[in-house]
C-alpha cells in the first residue's frame, strides 16, 4: 500500500531507447550513401577532366589544319596543295563525328575573337562551308534555353545572315538570356534588325542591355542608323528611352517637338534623357516647358532642369531662377539655381553663407591707422590715377553731386568731412604743396601721410573712429576713404599765393585721397584743377558677359542715370527697395498659387465632366438594358413553362426588374400573343446514342481521313435517311475532295519557274544546270519556252538542257533501275568530272556536299536499294541549291 503511494522518480532528461542494431544499420546506410556520392563526384570530375584533355588534344590537332584552310591561297605550291587536299579529306571524316564537330566549332569561335580582317572572313566562310551552322540551327530547336542562347550566339558571331528570320522569333522569348542574344543577333545580322527589334519588343530592355546594344552598333561600321524619333511614341518605355539615347548618340536633332513633349513624361529616366537631348541640341524652345514641368519634378530632375536652363537660357531666366531660390525647395536645388544665375550672369550672386558680419569687429587703434594709410595711399591713389585718365572732372563732379544728393549717406559723409577737415591744419597744406614739387609721387605720398599721422592727435582719431563705428552703417563705411576731404587747392593758393607760381603737375598727385570740397557744390567753375574727386568713377565692375551688356542696355533705355557710373557707391538698402522685393515675392507667390489653383480647378472640372458623362452614359445604358432584360425575361418565362424551369422562374421573379408590377401585368396580357410565337420556333432535334456515335465518327474522318474514306462515306450517305446526318456526310466528303484538289494543285507547281522570275542571268544558268539532274516533265514546258528567249545564252543553254533532260527521261523508262540511270548520268559527265577532280576538291562548297552522295553509295551497298540512292542524290541536289543561290547572290 505504501509502495503504491510512494511517488515515482521522474527524470527531467531521459535517454530515448533506441535499438543498437538500428543504429548500426543507419550508420551503414549513411556510409554507403557517402561512398556513392563521393564516387559519383569523382566519376564526373574525372569525366570532365578527360573530356577537357581530349578537347585540348583535339584542338592542338585541328588548329594547324584550320590555319591551313584559312591561309590557303590558290597560287600555293604543289606541296601545299597536296597538304591542303589531305587536310580536306581528313576534315571530311572528322565532320561525321559529333565530338569533332563540337571541337571544330569551338576552335573557330575562339579564333573568331582573336583575329580580324581577311583571316576572320576566311574563318567565317570555313564555318559555313563545313556546315557547322546547321548544328547551330539544331541548337535553336532545343528545349533547353541555354542551348538555344548558345546557338544564337554562334550564328551571330559567325555572321550567318540566313539565320536572321529564325532568330528574330526569339526577340520576345520569355527567357531573358535568349531574348538578349536574339536582340543582339538581330542588330548584328541585318541593318533593319534594329528597327524590327524596336518595333516588336515587348519586354524590358535593361540598362546593361542598352549599353551592349549601343556598343554593338558602335562597332558595326556598316550600320546605317534609322530615324529613331519614330520610336518616341512607343508604348514600351524602354524603347522610348533607348530611342532617346540613340537620338543623342547619332545627333538626330529633328525631333525637337517630341523631345519637348517628353519632358512631360511620367518616367523620370525618360525625362532625364529628354533634358539631356534638349541640352545637347540646344533647343531654346524647350525653356517654357522646362519651367512649367519644374514644379512637378523630383529633386534630381529639378537640378537637371536648372542645369538645362543655365545652358539654354539668357538673362530673362534669372527671374525664374530667383523664384526658385526664394521657394522652399531642397538646398541642392537652390544651390543649383544660384549656380545657374551665376552661369547666366557671372558673379551676380556673391557668397553669403558663412560670411561674418564686420559690424561687430572692434579694430585696434593701430590697425585703424594702418587701414587709413592703406586706403588713402594705395587703393585710392591707383584708382585716382585711372579715373583721371578716363573721365572729365566736371562730369564726375556732377555725378557725385547727384549721387550725394540722393543717398542718405550724404549726411554722414558731411559729418566725417567736417571732422576731418577740422583736423587738417594749414601746416599740412603747406607740406602738401612742398611735396607736390617732388618727382617721385609714391615717396611723397608716404612722407605726407607719415606727417599727417604724426600731427593728427591720436585722441581725435580715436574720436573719429568711434563716431564712424557708431553712426555709419556697414555699407557707409565702405565709402569712408572717399569722403576724406582736404582743403581745395584754390584755398591753399589764397592762403599762400607763392604756391601759384609752382608749376605743379596735377597728374602726379593723383595718389592723393579723394577730395570733395564744399566749394565744389557751391562753385563748380573753381574745380578745374581739382582732379582728385574723379576717383568715384574709377571703381569699375568686373568684366561682363554679353548677357550683362544686354541687361545694361535694357537698363539704359529705362533710366537716365548710368548705374555703372555709380557702381562705386556703397550699397544703400532703401526701404522702398525692400518693399519692391517683398512685392515681387508676393506677386510670385500669388502667381504660383494661381497656377496651382487653376490647374486643380481645371483638372477637377475635367474629372467632374468625365464622371458625369460616364454616369449619364451608364444611366442610359442601364435603362436600355433593363428594358431589354425585362422583355427577355417575359419571353423566357413564357417559353419555359414546364416544371423543370420552375426554379428558374422563381429566380427570374426574384430579379429586381421583374418586381415592377406594371411589367408583370403586361406580361399576363400578352400571353396569347407569345403562344403564337412559340409555334413558329422550331422544336429541338433529339439525337439517339447511335446518331451521336455517327457524328463522332464523321468528325474523326473529317479530321484524319483522306480519299480512302470516300467510298465508305458514299455508302453511308446512301443508307442514311436522316437529313441532318446526310448533310454532315456530304460536308465531310466535300472537305476531303477539297484537300485532294489542293494537293493536286501543289503537285503542278513548278519551283524553277518561280525562281526564274527573280533571278539574274548567272543564277538562271545555274538553275538550268540543276534541272538536268533534278528536273522532270514539268520543266520541259519551261525549257521549251526558254529556248525562244531573247537572250542567246539562255536560249542555247535551254536547248542543251532540254535535250539532256529528254535523254534522261528516255533512259528512266519504266522497269529500269534508277540506280542505273544515275550511273549513266555519272558516266555521261564522267570525263569532265575526272578532269576537274582536283579542282572540285579544292573548292569547299561542292566538296562537303559530296558527303551525301558517299552516304548514299554506302546505303546502296548495304541495302541494295537503288531508290534510296536516287532520293539522296535528289535530296542533296535540292539541299545544295539554296546554298549555291546564296553564294551566287553574295558574289
Amino acid at each position, binding site marked *: 500500500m505504501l509502495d503504491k503511494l510512494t511517488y515515482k522518480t521522474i527524470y527531467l532528461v531521459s535517454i530515448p531507447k533506441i535499438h543498437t542494431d538500428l543504429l548500426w544499420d543507419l550508420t551503414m546506410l549513411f556510409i554507403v550513401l557517402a561512398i556513392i556520392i563521393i564516387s559519383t563526384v569523382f566519376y564526373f570530375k574525372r569525366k570532365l577532366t578527360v573530356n577537357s584533355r581530349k578537347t585540348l588534344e583535339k*584542338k*592542338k590537332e585541328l*588548329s*594547324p589544319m*584550320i*590555319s*591551313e584552310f*584559312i*591561309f590557303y591561297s590558290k597560287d600555293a605550291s604543289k606541296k601545299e596543295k597536296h597538304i591542303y587536299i589531305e587536310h580536306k579529306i581528313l576534315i571530311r571524316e572528322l565532320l561525321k563525328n559529333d565530338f569533332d564537330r563540337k571541337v571544330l566549332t569551338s*576552335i573557330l569561335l*575562339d*579564333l573568331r*575573337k*582573336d*583575329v*580580324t*580582317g*581577311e*583571316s*576572320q572572313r576566311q574563318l567565317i566562310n570555313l564555318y559555313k562551308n563545313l556546315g557547322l551552322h546547321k548544328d547551330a540551327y539544331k541548337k535553336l530547336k532545343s528545349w533547353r534555353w541555354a542551348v538555344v542562347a548558345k546557338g544564337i550566339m554562334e550564328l551571330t558571331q559567325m555572321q550567318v545572315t540566313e539565320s536572321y528570320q529564325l532568330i528574330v522569333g526569339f526577340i520576345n522569348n520569355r527567357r531573358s538570356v535568349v531574348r538578349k542574344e536574339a536582340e543582339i543577333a538581330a542588330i548584328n545580322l541585318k541593318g533593319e534588325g534594329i528597327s524590327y527589334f524596336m518595333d516588336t519588343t515587348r519586354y524590358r530592355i535593361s540598362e546593361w542591355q542598352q549599353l551592349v546594344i549601343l556598343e554593338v552598333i558602335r562597332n558595326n561600321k556598316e550600320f546605317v542608323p534609322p530615324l529613331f524619333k519614330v520610336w518616341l511614341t512607343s508604348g514600351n518605355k524602354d524603347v522610348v528611352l533607348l530611342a532617346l539615347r540613340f537620338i543623342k548618340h547619332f545627333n538626330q536633332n529633328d525631333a525637337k517637338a517630341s523631345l519637348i513633349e517628353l519632358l512631360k513624361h511620367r518616367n523620370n529616366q525618360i525625362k532625364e534623357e529628354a533634358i539631356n537631348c534638349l541640352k545637347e541640341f540646344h533647343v531654346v524652345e524647350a525653356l517654357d516647358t522646362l519651367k512649367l514641368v519644374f514644379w512637378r519634378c523630383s529633386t534630381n530632375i529639378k537640378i537637371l532642369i536648372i542645369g538645362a536652363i543655365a545652358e539654354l537660357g539668357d538673362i530673362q531666366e534669372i527671374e525664374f531662377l530667383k523664384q526658385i531660390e526664394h521657394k522652399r525647395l531642397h538646398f541642392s536645388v537652390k544651390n543649383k539655381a544660384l549656380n545657374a544665375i551665376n552661369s547666366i550672369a557671372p558673379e551676380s550672386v556673391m557668397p553669403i553663407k558663412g560670411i561674418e558680419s564686420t559690424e561687430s569687429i572692434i579694430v585696434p587703434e593701430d590697425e585703424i591707422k594702418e587701414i587709413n594709410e592703406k586706403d588713402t595711399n594705395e587703393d585710392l591713389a591707383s584708382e585716382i590715377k585711372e579715373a583721371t585718365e578716363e573721365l572729365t572732372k566736371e562730369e564726375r563732379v556732377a555725378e557725385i553731386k547727384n549721387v550725394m544728393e540722393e543717398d542718405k549717406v550724404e549726411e554722414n559723409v558731411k559729418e566725417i568731412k567736417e571732422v576731418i577737415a577740422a583736423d587738417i591744419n594749414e601746416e599740412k597744406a603747406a607740406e602738401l604743396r612742398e611735396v607736390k614739387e617732388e618727382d617721385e609721387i609714391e615717396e611723397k605720398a608716404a612722407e605726407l601721410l607719415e606727417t599727417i599721422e604724426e600731427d593728427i592727435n591720436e585722441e581725435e582719431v580715436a574720436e573719429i573712429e568711434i563716431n564712424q563705428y557708431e553712426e555709419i552703417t556697414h555699407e557707409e563705411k565702405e565709402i569712408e576713404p572717399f569722403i576724406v576731404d582736404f582743403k581745395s587747392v584754390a584755398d591753399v593758393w589764397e592762403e599762400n599765393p607763392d604756391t601759384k607760381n609752382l608749376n605743379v603737375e596735377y597728374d602726379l598727385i593723383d595718389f592723393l585721397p579723394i577730395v570733395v570740397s564744399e566749394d565744389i557744390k557751391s562753385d563748380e567753375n573753381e574745380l578745374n584743377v581739382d582732379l582728385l574727386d574723379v576717383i568715384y568713377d574709377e571703381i569699375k565692375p568686373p568684366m561682363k558677359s554679353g548677357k550683362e551688356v544686354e541687361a545694361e542696355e535694357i537698363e539704359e533705355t529705362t533710366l537716365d542715370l548710368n548705374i555703372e557710373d555709380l557702381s562705386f557707391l556703397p550699397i544703400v538698402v532703401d526701404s522702398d527697395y525692400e518693399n519692391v522685393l517683398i512685392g515681387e515675392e508676393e506677386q510670385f507667390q500669388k502667381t504660383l498659387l494661381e497656377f496651382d489653383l487653376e490647374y486643380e480647378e481645371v483638372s477637377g472640372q475635367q474629372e467632374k465632366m468625365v464622371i458625369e458623362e460616364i454616369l449619364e452614359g451608364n444611366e442610359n445604358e442601364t435603362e436600355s438594358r433593363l428594358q431589354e432584360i425585362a422583355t427577355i425575361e417575359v419571353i423566357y418565362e413564357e417559353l419555359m413553362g414546364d416544371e423543370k424551369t420552375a426554379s428558374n422562374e422563381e429566380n427570374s421573379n426574384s430579379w429586381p426588374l421583374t418586381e415592377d408590377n406594371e411589367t408583370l401585368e403586361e406580361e399576363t396580357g400578352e400571353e396569347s400573343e407569345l403562344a403564337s410565337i412559340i409555334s413558329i420556333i422550331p422544336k429541338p432535334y433529339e439525337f439517339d446514342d447511335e446518331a451521336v456515335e455517327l457524328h463522332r465518327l464523321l468528325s474523326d474522318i473529317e479530321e484524319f481521313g483522306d480519299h480512302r474514306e470516300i467510298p465508305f462515306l458514299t455508302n453511308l450517305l446512301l443508307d442514311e435517311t436522316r437529313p441532318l446526318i446526310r448533310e454532315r456526310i456530304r460536308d465531310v466528303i466535300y472537305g476531303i475532295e477539297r484537300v485532294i484538289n489542293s494537293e493536286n494543285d501543289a503537285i503542278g507547281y513548278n519551283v524553277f519557274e518561280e525562281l526564274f522570275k527573280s533571278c539574274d542571268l548567272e543564277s538562271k544558268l545555274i538553275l538550268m544546270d540543276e534541272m538536268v539532274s533534278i528536273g522532270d516533265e514539268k520543266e520541259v514546258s519551261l525549257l521549251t519556252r526558254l529556248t525562244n528567249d531573247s537572250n542567246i545564252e539562255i536560249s542555247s543553254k535551254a536547248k542543251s538542257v532540254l535535250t539532256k533532260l529528254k535523254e534522261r527521261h528516255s533512259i528512266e523508262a519504266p522497269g529500269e533501275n534508277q540506280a542505273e540511270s544515275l550511273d549513266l548520268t555519272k558516266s555521261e559527265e564522267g570525263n569532265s568530272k575526272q578532269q576537274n577532280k582536283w579542282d572540285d576538291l579544292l573548292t569547299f562548297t561542292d566538296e562537303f556536299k559530296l558527303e551525301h552522295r558517299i552516304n548514299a553509295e554506302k546505303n546502296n551497298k548495304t541495302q541494295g536499294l537503288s531508290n534510296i540512292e536516287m532520293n539522296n542524290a535528289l535530296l542533296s541536289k535540292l539541299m545544295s541549291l539554296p546554298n549555291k543561290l546564296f553564294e551566287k547572290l553574295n558574289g
Partner: protein
Amino acid sequence: MEKKRLLLAEDDELLASLLNYRLEKSGYQVIMSYNGKEVKDQLVKEMPDLIISDIMMPYFSGLELIDYVRNELNSKTPIIIISSAGNEENVLNAFDLGANDFISKPVSPAELIVRVERELAKT
C-alpha cells in the same frame, strides 16, 4: 638566305598556332613560347631577331619581358607587343620600357607580317 628567327610569346595556343603558321608561311623561323618562363629560357639560350609578345602572360608578363630584354640582357632586339584593345595604360608602359611597336587584339595576321617586316628592316 638564312631565315630570320622570331620568338612568339603567346599563351593562347590557338592564336599562337595560327600566327605561327602565317609567320612561317611568310618565310620566318618561329620559336613558340606559351608562358613567361619558356620565353626567359629561350632568350637566355638564344636571342632571336625579333620578339612578338602578348602583354598578359602567365609567370612573366610582356612588360617584364621588355624590361628583362632591355635592362638585363641589354639587347636592342625589336619587340612587338600584342595587347587587348582598350589596355592603353599597358601599351604606354610598354613603350616607356622600350617596346618598338604595338598591335591590338583582335590581330590581323597580315598586319602583323607588315609590322614585323618593317621592324626587321630597321635593324
